[in-house]
């Protein structure tokens, strides 16, 4: 029971982190119809910028400054890159963001090198918040949860309760009408792109110290973020939330409970072959759940796409 609680918290942290990335990605997608392949690269940039700032001004200034820089960079990419490629269609846009992801990784290696950066949790948060049956929960995890929840609530408030949010929502569905009413829709697009990438930057800042700040961090998380929004349904914010938490919990539980395929198969009444060295399915018998934890999201995605191609919360013809 206690272990379940610990895993719930761990999964929540992972899920909320994923959500910070997928929220921006799904917003950008529903607005411009383009999946930003470089989204996770902005997350990486957030971590690196925050590290660089924290060397001079400390962790908290990094948390404030880095997302702003990332957001400005993101807005610049939209203004001078994507808008130019937009005329060629959606596929070149996707290829553009893919190239951007490659380039950002190279630039990061150019500036900071290939090694991991010594970006650490600030001292003020280096204590144990509480412990559950001997499993200590670090304060930083609680801090991560608070930051993500706060950002989610702010985002929800801005999108549904403020004038800016109304214009954004209207621009999502009827860009031409909104433009005719006198709003600068390209500016709105640029703003949403900037805010979306800034959110990814925040995620990078708070994830950098725990998940390691290194040039591969975008690749590690990148594809999972896409999987998340595909499972949740492209363009659905709620779907992104549900899918992020789902993936967070599934991977955490699969990693901490050592479920073996052998037990499942024997439980189902399948006889274990005596000599397995030559059997082609010998790997099936030795699979354990921690081993496949990282590919469970992909499996889930393939299953979802086969049985419900528009995702959990997506509209039928998104």
């Amino acid at each position, binding site marked *: 029971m206690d272990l379940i609680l610990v895993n719930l918290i761990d999964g929540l942290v992972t899920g909320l982190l994923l959500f910070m990335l997928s929220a921006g990605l799904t917003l950008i997608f529903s607005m411009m119809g383009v999946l930003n392949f470089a989204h996770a690269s902005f997350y990486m940039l957030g971590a690196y910028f925050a590290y660089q700032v924290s060397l001079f001004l400390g962790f908290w200034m990094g948390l404030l400054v880095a997302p702003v820089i990332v957001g400005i960079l993101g807005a610049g990419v939209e203004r001078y*890159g994507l808008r130019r490629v937009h005329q060629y269609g959606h596929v070149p846009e996707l290829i*553009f963001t893919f*190239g951007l992801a*490659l*380039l950002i990784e190279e630039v990061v290696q150019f500036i900071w090198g290939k090694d991991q950066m010594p970006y650490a949790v600030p001292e003020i948060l280096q204590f144990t918040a509480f412990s559950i049956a001997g499993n200590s929960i670090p304060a930083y995890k609680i801090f991560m949860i608070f930051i993500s929840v706060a950002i989610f609530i702010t985002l929800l408030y801005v999108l549904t309760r403020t004038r800016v949010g109304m214009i954004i929502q209207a621009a999502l569905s009827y860009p031409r009408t909104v433009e005719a009413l006198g709003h600068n829709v390209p500016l709105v697009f640029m703003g949403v792109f900037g805010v979306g990438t800034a959110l990814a930057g925040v995620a990078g800042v708070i994830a950098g110290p725990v998940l390691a700040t290194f040039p591969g961090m975008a690749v590690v998380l990148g594809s999972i973020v896409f*999987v998340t929004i595909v499972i949740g349904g492209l363009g659905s914010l709620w779907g992104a939330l549900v899918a992020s938490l789902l993936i967070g919990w599934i991977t955490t539980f699969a990693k901490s409970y050592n479920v073996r395929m052998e037990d499942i198969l024997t439980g189902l009444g399948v006889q274990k072959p005596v000599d397995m060295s030559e059997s082609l399915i010998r790997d099936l018998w030795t699979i354990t759940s921690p081993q496949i934890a990282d*590919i469970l999201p992909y499996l889930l995605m*393939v299953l979802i796409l086969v049985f419900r191609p528009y995702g959990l919360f997506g509209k039928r013809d998104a």
Partner: protein
Amino acid sequence: MTTQSLTRPPLVTLSGALPWVIATLFLLAMPQIFTSNSALTIMNQMAITIVFALAYNMLLGQGGMLSFGHAVYMGMGGFMCVHVMNYVEDYSLPIPLPVLPVFGGLFGMGVALIVGSFSTRKAGTVFAMISLGVGELIAACSVIVVAFFGGEEGVSGDRTYGLPVFGTEFLHQIEIYYLTVFWLVLSALLMYLFSRTPIGRMANAVRDNPERAEFLGYSARWVRFYSFVASGFFAGIAGGLFAINYEILTEENLNLATSGSILLVTFLGGVGFFFGPIIGAIVFTLLQTVLSLQTEIWQLYLGILFLATVMYFPGGLAGVLMMHALPIRLGKAGLLVVPYLRTLLPAALCILGLAGALEILFHIRHAALGDSEMTLFWVTFDSHAPLPLIAAIVAVAVGFWLARRSAPELAEAWHKANTPDGGAA
């Protein structure tokens, strides 16, 4: 091409067959020109990349489907081939080495049949995402399913244990080269012919306007599915050639990096023309082998080149080449030579200056402590001194300014070269 009559044009015309004959003769003559073993290795790699890129372009260029996981079909085909190779060795089966790629192709096609059955329902973003997910899934499986993928170290075989074919045992690189060239020409020809069949033409129609294609009575989904399966077959052939050439396949052949680089190759070469991916594969392999020997940050240059291509030349290298078809046909290509030289030479100076500045900065940041000597463009200097960096920046500025100044002249010459005499533009 331009015949308007109702009679069917002849299936094989001289002008249609000529490029193929020349290309084949050229490929056969290549080892006589470049005799060294390393050149053969590069040419083999090029040939494999060409087959793979052409197969990829069946999706991207001809079918409008962007795949982020196409390495899977090549990799699966390759893995299968290594297994077949080992079976031939263990059980002395009468399968000669040259037919091995067929197994790779069939296996790649089988995987494409399964994946395509659900991934081709939608084109565009959804297809791209599914391909990414499936690619990641299979790449991750390769570490778990040891029986087929061999885990971390991959599976390896030995090509020389098969049956000798007409006395050839495939011990030498040159024999492998001719084997690869045979399959290259055959599969390129088949892929070209595929693009001329009704189904290949329908793939173009579905790419451009799926609704209209459906309205004509064609199922866009099935058209996409057929292209996908065919592409999987040829990717599998490329995998088989890879297996024969390198005799080992690992997780690296399946992962996102490989899938991404084939996208790079194809797009760089140009997706709009059949020969685009061929140019892309040749240029990319050369860049990869030559640049990576010269500089550590070649991937940075590659990234910049790729992004610049997407933004400014979406037609790729083939597109840029074909832009000149009209001036040449009008006999006005000569008008372009001088403006080109006056713009491109300064532009080259600018680019070289930029590369120099990047190299110096990289050296300052990442060289071992105390090591401040570097060699660039055959000049050895102290990287921490300000002079080389200033020189590089001056080169960038001067080059940019000169190129900028003569750009309007080039634009005017371009316009003139594209206007027929006496006709309005």
